[in-house]
């Protein structure tokens, strides 16, 4: 990966060398220029910096070579440290939490001397980070109205909408962009179709993506991931291997194989594949943490909680030393989720709260989201322990957070917790209303199916159980709930009520 970065960087510099001596001073584009060109302007003092940023973003979007793209962006910003959109792109692409925060701040600080559309992009992103959703949506639509066919505006809009779980709107923008043959946008739209479980359309886009870039690894990797989401594990592994055959350095495919074996229930093989990945590749920090967490989950899937504790604790210790408060807190939260002893789970939640209070290298939005996740676990734990006082107290805090916020993660944490509380109070219809808002968390799906049964809505219960059995995202919640449930669900002699307990 490091060697490749240097090659790419050299290539980009070579491409732009003639302009390097010119240092042209590009003034912000006027609105007349903007409507004529219909392309998002990039204001920079350096033509060379602009070319490198364009190269970096093409690499990122079309080939998902995130590490290389980051290196190029950093190089461009050394040439022009006041390149506002360069900082903005790096804030989006970076895998370093501290860099994300600082780059967004630099983009915002440098927005005063750029064109109106660039300023709108930067303020939209700032609004997004600050949870000013209405203002963010307005700015995004203003940009889409001005630049409906600009690759970067379409990419940023569809990406952001996906983060906001507005998959259908993201698809609509892609389909009307006139850029449906752009490989990167095609890739992202494929995921959007997969998120709404339209796998036929998602896989058709993957066929197109593979055909567009036959010598690239990422199309095969995406194909594999979407097949995995559809529960077609064997074919997923074939495509991951095809990606590695094209590019043996494409590490996400190696870890994709490991994740898939884990979902298939072969934890020994999964750990072997993770080990190969860790030994073979030098990974960006957050990617390494991600797959170390997934590796830790293999022990949970086996019911080896001691092994899981050891593996998760190693991640938490690393995050403590480096320090990454939200990562550390989320690791303790996940440990709390699978603990058989509620008292031990509470201790872990206290550690998570302490870590989060540190607030190191995490965006405010991420801290708030984590806080909500922790409160949700506290509610569920208190309900399990029959401690109504603690459940109400945590629920009240979570409700206040949700009322003040427009954040999806916070809202779904609230809905999941409120659903669990209503279910525990035998208020099944109210529980259903809340749990329907958290349909992609297996813990909520499990309760939802039970709530439907309680009110004798057998058809809805069956639909929910089917969804739960098909749930194939490698999350801890999936690891705790789905494998044992699926096994029972597929065995006609097994009592589903027991599996749902």
């Amino acid at each position, binding site marked *: 990966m490091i060697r490749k970065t240097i090659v790419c960087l050299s290539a980009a510099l070579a491409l732009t060398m003639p302009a390097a001596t010119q240092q042209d001073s590009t003034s912000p584009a006027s609105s007349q220029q903007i409507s004529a060109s219909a392309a998002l302007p990039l204001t920079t003092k350096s033509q060379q910096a602009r070319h490198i940023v364009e190269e970096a973003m093409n690499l990122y979007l079309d080939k998902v070579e995130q590490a290389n793209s980051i290196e190029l962006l950093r190089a461009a910003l050394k040439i022009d440290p006041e390149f506002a959109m360069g900082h903005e792109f790096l804030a989006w692409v970076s895998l370093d939490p501290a860099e994300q925060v600082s780059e967004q701040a630099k983009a915002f600080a440098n927005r005063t001397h750029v064109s109106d559309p660039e300023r709108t992009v930067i303020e939209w992103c700032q609004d997004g980070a600050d949870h000013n959703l209405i203002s963010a949506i307005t700015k995004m639509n203003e940009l889409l109205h001005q630049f409906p066919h600009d690759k970067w505006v379409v990419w940023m809009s569809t990406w952001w909408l996906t983060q906001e779980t*507005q998959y259908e709107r993201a698809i609509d923008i892609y389909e009307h962009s006139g850029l449906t043959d752009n490989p990167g946008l095609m890739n992202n739209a494929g995921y959007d179709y997969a998120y709404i479980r339209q796998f036929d359309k998602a896989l058709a886009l993957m066929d197109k993506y593979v055909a567009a870039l036959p010598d690239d690894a990422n199309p095969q990797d995406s194909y594999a991931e979407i097949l995995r989401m559809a529960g077609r594990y064997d074919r997923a592994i074939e495509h991951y291997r095809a990606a590695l055959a094209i590019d043996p350095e494409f590490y996400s495919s190696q870890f*994709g194989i490991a994740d898939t074996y884990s979902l298939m229930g072969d934890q020994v093989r999964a750990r072997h594949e993770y080990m190969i990945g860790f030994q073979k590749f030098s990974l960006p920090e957050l990617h390494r*943490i991600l797959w170390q967490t997934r590796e830790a989950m293999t022990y949970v899937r086996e019911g080896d909680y001691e092994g899981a504790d050891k593996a998760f604790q190693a991640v938490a210790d690393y995050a403590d030393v480096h320090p990454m408060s939200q990562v550390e807190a989320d690791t303790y939260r*996940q440990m709390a989720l699978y603990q058989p002893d509620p008292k031990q789970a509470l201790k872990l939640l206290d550690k998570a709260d302490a870590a989060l209070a540190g607030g190191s290298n995490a965006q405010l939005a*991420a801290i708030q989201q984590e806080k909500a996740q922790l409160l949700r676990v506290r509610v569920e734990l208190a309900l399990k322990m029959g401690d109504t006082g603690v459940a109400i107290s945590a629920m009240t805090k979570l409700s206040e957070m949700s009322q003040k916020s427009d954040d*999806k993660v916070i809202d779904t944490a609230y809905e999941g917790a409120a659903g669990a509380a209503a279910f525990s109070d035998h208020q099944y219809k109210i529980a259903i209303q809340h749990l*329907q808002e958290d349909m*992609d968390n297996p813990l909520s799906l499990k309760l939802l199916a039970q709530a439907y049964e309680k009110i004798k809505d057998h058809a809805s219960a069956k639909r929910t159980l089917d969804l739960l059995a098909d749930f194939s995202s490698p999350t801890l919640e999936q690891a705790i709930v789905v494998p044992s449930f699926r096994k029972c669900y597929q065995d006609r002699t097994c009592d589903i009520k027991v599996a749902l307990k």
Partner: protein
Amino acid sequence: MRARQLLTIILVGLLSCLAEGRQLAIVAANSATTANLSSSELVKIFNAKTHQWPDGKPIIVVLRDPSSSEMEMVLHRLLNMTPEEARAFVDTHRNAFAIVNSDDEVIRFVSSTRGAIGVIDLFSLTKDVNVIKIDGKLPVEQGYLLRGN
């Protein structure tokens, strides 16, 4: 692989697998004087029981096709009608309703028509219209009438 940002990674895929929720918004022209309506006022407007704004301007409700999936929540929470009933209702109250084909058309109609009030997907919002609060709440707030799956 889809390129990802920090939050997606650390919340172990949480953001990328949340169910899609629909959030609708009631919008009016930027020049409109009404910024807040109660649920009951809104229900009366949508059921053609209130015909005028306090300043005497006639109210026109701008909607997408009542049988479209986008309008499901409006039918359920404001009109309490089936799509067929809603169509028939709109047909018999032609002066009070305008049916258009897209959120963009809702926004164009509302921003250029005195007294018009429309329903759009929140994520279609532009600066050409204002969001009207319902019971003091914006669409992004918990408990907003037109929020949910």
